[in-house]
């Protein structure tokens, strides 16, 4: 008999369930400082008989040495500074088991100053137990922690209302706290599974049901924990396989990484985003000393694997592999809800490094939409996000990023921001109002060759008496783009220019009649107009385009398509435009009849460095047209 099969037999004899690894659930205990997190953990350990020999005695000695009453917190507060100051500084972990399964208990500091440590602890958990002091009620950190748990993606939450002994085990007061906190959690999208009245110090409802609170019919804390489920690997979702590294230790070129969602099989065609290259999985590599172990033919979420491809395409760390039909979003701009942990505040306009899966890239804070007060969920505006604040921001990268919305694929829809050397914040992604740009940058045509023209640009300019090019008007609805475009067209025509206006409403009657007003179609609308304007320009004419074109990425693409491109910001603030409201659109938008209306319910990204700004709020139309004519005469001169 081979050594391996002998070993297997031996194993089977000892453990009917091979390797007999018990189920493990990771629970984080969070709450306001001094609401009794550590005491609850200590009590749970004591009452389930989980304390190591001599631990109780050693804690007693530590307390006597400091002249303080017995303190369960010393079980997990391992640092001298924590014991001396009676405060939990950093998160810690401790193991215990019930009849049902094993637990890792993660203690997270309640003090606001150590929020980064609370997040470090909480992010590792499958479920959370929130502690609230019955005598003090719901406090600032009770809410903040609830909010952050939700942001971190933790969906299984139980609440323990502690120190019931201090309020004489009164049902009425418990009910009030339960109602208040349930209302808060519900408002942020969290449904607590249980709200349990307990006294950690006295041991009520921790392991044993309390004789003091016969009115409570729900489970004890330990029973509640046993009802939670370990986070299941998202095996059935679309494949997300971020490339972690590419190895060439021997003749194999192995693409290594962990499958975050979904599964892959040998023979599958994988697409790598954002480079948009694809190839088939040739093999799933493995190393094992067990004789006869065969290479796997499929792998799924949670597994760290290595694959080889049938074609030697250039793939590097940071690419996100998926199947072709369920590819991630590609964009260079997105919305995020972030929590900030940096020593320096997050600033509008400042650049940070984003770590998104295995990808790292510089991003700039384009705007800070609002600061969210986690106590009452109110919004305020600011140019910076302070340490420990939660905010809604828009981030812009200099290149395309492959990502997902957090609500659809959490692992590829979250990121951290690095400020200098430190992880300074984390966030989750939403594409609300922003388009997936994948289709705009994907070329589906093959076997095409450019035809060389027989007439060069200079010859066309000489015949026309002016250069060709694009005047790209951008601005809010009602800023005066169309009025100016038409007036300018007339003036230039009279002066002998070959000029034509491409207007939003007009192209939607023909060229773009098949496009809707979804973010993706709006982006496609602008892409087509950009290409058409570029053709006009190359033909020697001046194309004036009159489109809101609210997104910087879209305008940048139009600029790339054309030669002699001039971005002209037709500027007027929302209030001015709304007062004008020539088409009655603002009124409809305010009434909620038009959704995603630029300036009201969708963003307008003003140009960073346009060639020309025409301010129609302060300047008369004639004067604006005059400036534009002068501009064209200088810039389009042969």
């Amino acid at each position, binding site marked *: 008999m081979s050594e391996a099969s002998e070993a297997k037999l031996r194993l089977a004899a000892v453990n009917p369930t091979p390797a007999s*690894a018990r189920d493990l659930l990771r629970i984080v205990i969070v709450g306001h400082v001094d609401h009794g997190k550590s005491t609850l953990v200590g009590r749970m350990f004591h009452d389930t008989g989980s304390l*190591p020999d001599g631990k109780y005695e050693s804690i007693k000695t530590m307390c006597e040495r400091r002249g303080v009453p017995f303190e369960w917190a010393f079980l*997990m507060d391992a640092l001298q500074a924590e014991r001396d100051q009676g405060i939990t500084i950093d998160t810690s972990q401790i193991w215990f088991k019930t009849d049902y399964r094993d637990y890792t208990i993660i203690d997270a500091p309640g003090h606001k100053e150590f929020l980064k440590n609370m997040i*470090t602890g909480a992010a590792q958990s499958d479920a959370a137990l929130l502690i609230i002091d019955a005598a003090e009620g719901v406090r600032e950190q009770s809410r903040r922690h609830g909010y952050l748990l939700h942001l971190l993606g933790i969906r299984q939450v139980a609440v323990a209302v502690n120190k019931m002994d201090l309020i004489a085990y009164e049902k009425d007061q418990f009910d009030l706290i339960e109602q208040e906190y349930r209302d808060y959690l519900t408002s942020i999208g969290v449904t607590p599974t249980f709200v349990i009245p307990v006294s950690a110090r006295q041991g009520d409802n921790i392991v044993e049901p309390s004789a003091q609170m016969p009115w409570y019919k729900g489970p004890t804390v330990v029973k509640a924990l046993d009802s939670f489920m370990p986070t299941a690997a998202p095996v059935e979702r679309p494949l997300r396989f971020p490339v972690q590294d590419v190895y060439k230790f021997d003749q194999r070129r192995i693409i290594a*990484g962990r499958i975050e969602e979904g599964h892959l099989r040998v023979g599958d065609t994988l697409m790598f985003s954002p480079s948009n290259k694809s190839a088939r999985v040739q093999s799933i590599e493995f*190393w094992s000393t*067990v004789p006869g172990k065969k290479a796997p033919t499929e792998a799924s979420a949670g597994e760290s694997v290595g694959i080889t491809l049938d074609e030697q395409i250039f793939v590097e760390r940071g690419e996100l592999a998926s199947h072709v039909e369920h590819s991630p979003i590609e964009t260079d701009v997105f919305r995020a809800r972030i929590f900030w942990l940096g020593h320096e505040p997050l600033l509008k306009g400042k650049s940070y490094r984003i770590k998104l899966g295995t990808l790292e890239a510089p991003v700039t804070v384009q705007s800070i939409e609002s600061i969210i007060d986690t106590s009452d969920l109110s919004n305020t505006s600011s140019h910076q996000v302070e340490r420990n604040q939660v905010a809604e921001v828009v981030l812009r990268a200099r290149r395309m990023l492959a990502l997902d919305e957090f609500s659809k694929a959490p692992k590829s829809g979250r990121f951290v921001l690095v400020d200098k*050397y430190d992880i300074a914040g*984390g966030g989750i992604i939403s594409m609300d109002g922003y388009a997936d740009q994948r289709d705009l940058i994907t070329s589906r045509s093959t076997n095409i060759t450019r035809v060389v023209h027989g007439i060069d640009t200079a010859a066309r300019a000489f015949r026309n008496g002016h250069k060709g090019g694009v005047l790209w008007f951008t601005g809010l609805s009602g800023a005066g783009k169309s009025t100016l475009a038409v007036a300018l067209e007339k003036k230039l025509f009279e002066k002998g220019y070959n000029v034509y206006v491409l207007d939003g409403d007009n192209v939607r009657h023909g060229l773009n009649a098949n496009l809707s007003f979804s973010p993706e179609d709006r982006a496609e609308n602008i892409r087509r107009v950009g290409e058409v304007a570029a053709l006009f320009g190359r033909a020697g004419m001046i194309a004036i385009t009159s489109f809101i074109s609210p997104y910087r990425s879209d305008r940048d693409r139009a600029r790339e398509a054309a030669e002699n491109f001039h971005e002209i910001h037709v500027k007027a603030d929302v209030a001015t435009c709304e007062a004008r409201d020539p088409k009655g659109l603002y009124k409809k938008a305010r009434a909620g009849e038009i959704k995603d209306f630029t300036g009201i319910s969708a963003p307008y990204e003003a140009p960073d460095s346009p060639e020309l700004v025409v301010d129609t709020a302060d300047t008369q139309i004639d004067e604006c047209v005059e400036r534009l004519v002068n501009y064209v005469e200088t810039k389009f001169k042969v």
Partner: protein
Amino acid sequence: MDRLDQLESQSIFIFREAFNRIENIAMLWSLGKDSNVMIWLARKAFFGHVPFPVMHVDTGKKFPEMYDFRDRYAAEWGLNFIREECPPLEMTDETLPPAARSAARKTEGLKLAIKKYGFNALFAGIRRDEEATRAKERVFSPRGLTGQWDFKDQPPEFWDQFKTDFPPGTHIRIHPLLHWTEVDIWLYTLREQIPTIPLYFAKDGKRYRSLGDKDITSPVASTATTIEEIIEELRTTKVSERSGRAMDHESEDAFERLRADGYL
């Protein structure tokens, strides 16, 4: 995936992150059960290769069985093996209690080796469940130039995004086994048939649960003579793993002081 598969996958992920992000890295091999599992996991992560040096910082006071084991498997596993000597006791902090002071030789040896080879980072096989200050560790744990651990201000670490950017002069400890428990180590050793030093098995009613220098390590009462019996024993024992390691117990903060100064 069962629990061992999950633990393994997480460790592989950590190895690969470190190997990609940090130049000039080495692995510490204490010859014990944990660091043997660590080497095994590295071979899994890199498809049979261990693409960095494996270093034993030698106090010269290990058990003979440990040296035999080291010499055999360094060759058999094809490791790029380095042995570094620890400096004498006189070079350590004389205010430490005796056993802790003896253990501190390893810290000094470590510092000298880091300097000698210019390692930016070291893999170390510590686990959170071994000891309370280790329970507070990060997977990527930055240290000062002389190895100190600033445990009062550790970096945030979440969503498997580790701190991989450092000002010059920072040294990093990477802990691929931080999330494993003692039982996990034995279950995995059994499943993977990883070679084990015989001192872990009971002889005359005693066995070593944790291996260190022979003068400051003592065996615990046990009848476990196979890995299966060790696993059964651990499921019911209430004795802590490091109860046989003298330096942990001399004073309330002896081990914390050792660790703050750079001990593993």
